[in-house]
């Protein structure tokens, strides 16, 4: 079966982010989406540790320990960007100003519940960071993940078994095998990777999937 690599998933997510959008890219995999945003469009990246207008990584030797992203990696600031404190930063999410955030996930349910902060393992040290705030704050939450675990279990599920990050907050799921809309109407397929059939996705996820009415619905 064809599968998209992580960069290809990131590129696919990037295609759905329109010019002028305010976007937060979660730590880890979603950070890669930045590499695929079109250079000729202005898209404003937000980082919850207090900056808007985040630019790419600095040239080697140009790193500034006071200028980092939420993943604590050195970044730069674009012209038009600015700094602010943590309360203002989270106010941007909570008051609905972020158009899109892109998060990784352990599981996403067909109705849009997100589980991405804990696998519930009893000996694990819990850590939540800004995930719960992003999940309920952004106007649209895009999840980016491989559809299956290493053991072949679907991470797109009827109901999450892992501890929840947010309820009914995800609108799109971008995976290595296809793109899904999730929400009140359940999970639907927006597109599949070449050679992957709707039936194959039904079988892999165990969900009663159908095509989304239009590819554009729920898009940013």
């Amino acid at each position, binding site marked *: 079966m064809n599968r998209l690599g992580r960069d290809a998933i990131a590129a696919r997510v990037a295609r759905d982010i329109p*010019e*002028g959008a*305010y976007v937060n890219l979660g730590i880890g995999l979603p950070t890669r989406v930045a590499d695929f945003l079109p250079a000729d469009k*202005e898209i*404003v990246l*937000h980082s919850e540790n207090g900056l*808007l*207008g985040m630019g790419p990584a600095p040239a080697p030797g140009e790193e500034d320990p006071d200028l980092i992203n939420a993943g604590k990696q050195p970044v730069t*600031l674009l*012209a*038009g*960007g*600015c*700094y*602010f404190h943590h*309360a*203002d930063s*989270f*106010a*941007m*999410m*909570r*008051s*609905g*100003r*972020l158009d899109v955030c892109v998060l990784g996930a352990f599981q996403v349910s067909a109705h849009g519940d997100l589980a991405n902060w804990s696998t519930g393992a009893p000996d694990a040290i819990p850590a939540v960071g800004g995930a719960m705030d992003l999940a309920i*704050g952004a106007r649209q939450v895009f999840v980016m993940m491989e559809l299956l675990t290493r053991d072949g279990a679907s991470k797109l599920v009827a109901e999450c078994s892992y501890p929840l990050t947010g309820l009914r907050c995800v609108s799109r799921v971008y995976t290595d095998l296809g793109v899904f809309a999730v929400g009140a109407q359940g999970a639907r397929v927006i597109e599949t990777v070449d050679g992957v059939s709707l039936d194959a996705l039904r079988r892999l996820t165990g969900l009663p999937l159908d095509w989304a009415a239009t590819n554009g619905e729920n898009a940013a």
Partner: protein
Amino acid sequence: MIDKTLTSCEAAVADVHDGATVMIGGFGTAGMPYALIDALLAQGARELTIVNNNAGNGDTGLAALIRHRRVRRIVCSFPRQADSQHFDAAYRAGEIELELVPQGNLAARIHAAGNGLGAIYTPTGYGTRIAEGKETREIDGRHYVLEYPLHADFALIRAHRGDRWGNLVYRKTARNFGPLMAMAAKCTIAEVDAVVPLGGLDPEAVVTPGIFVQRVVATGLGRQEAA
């Protein structure tokens, strides 16, 4: 390219609908967005709910909106002033509804909206008429009143400089409610003395990040600076 600048106040306020809730910046006349208010007056929207610290001074700005019967309801802390004659007349005639809010609660409720909070427990007003009929709670030995956020459809504010991304800086005490209202309104419209090129504002000194601002209009009405 993101460009939030507009060249006319008329265009900036064209979609303010009848019945809209409109926050208007300013404390007294400092920070009052006169050009935007004039445009709103000309535009003709009626039955407005206005949120401002005062209820208009003299014959211009918010006072003119009230005088022309565009305001159904006003939320403010200090309506009665020496030159608030248009509000006074409308109020005594029963033509305008007043929600009186202590100034700190006004700021806190606007800020709560901007911070996406559902409600806040504030100490101000406990045991007074302002709190009558409101839920109260004792927390750690102190008494608080439950107050709800103030949201708006539009905020009309005045700033000093802005850029095409909507970043704003203010001038002296004209800052007052502007940054809070920008956070609390669905559509924030800023009247500025001048638009500067992107990168022309110090990123450490931007007071209102552009994400909170939808439209910027340079009116060239700067006061001292324009002299």
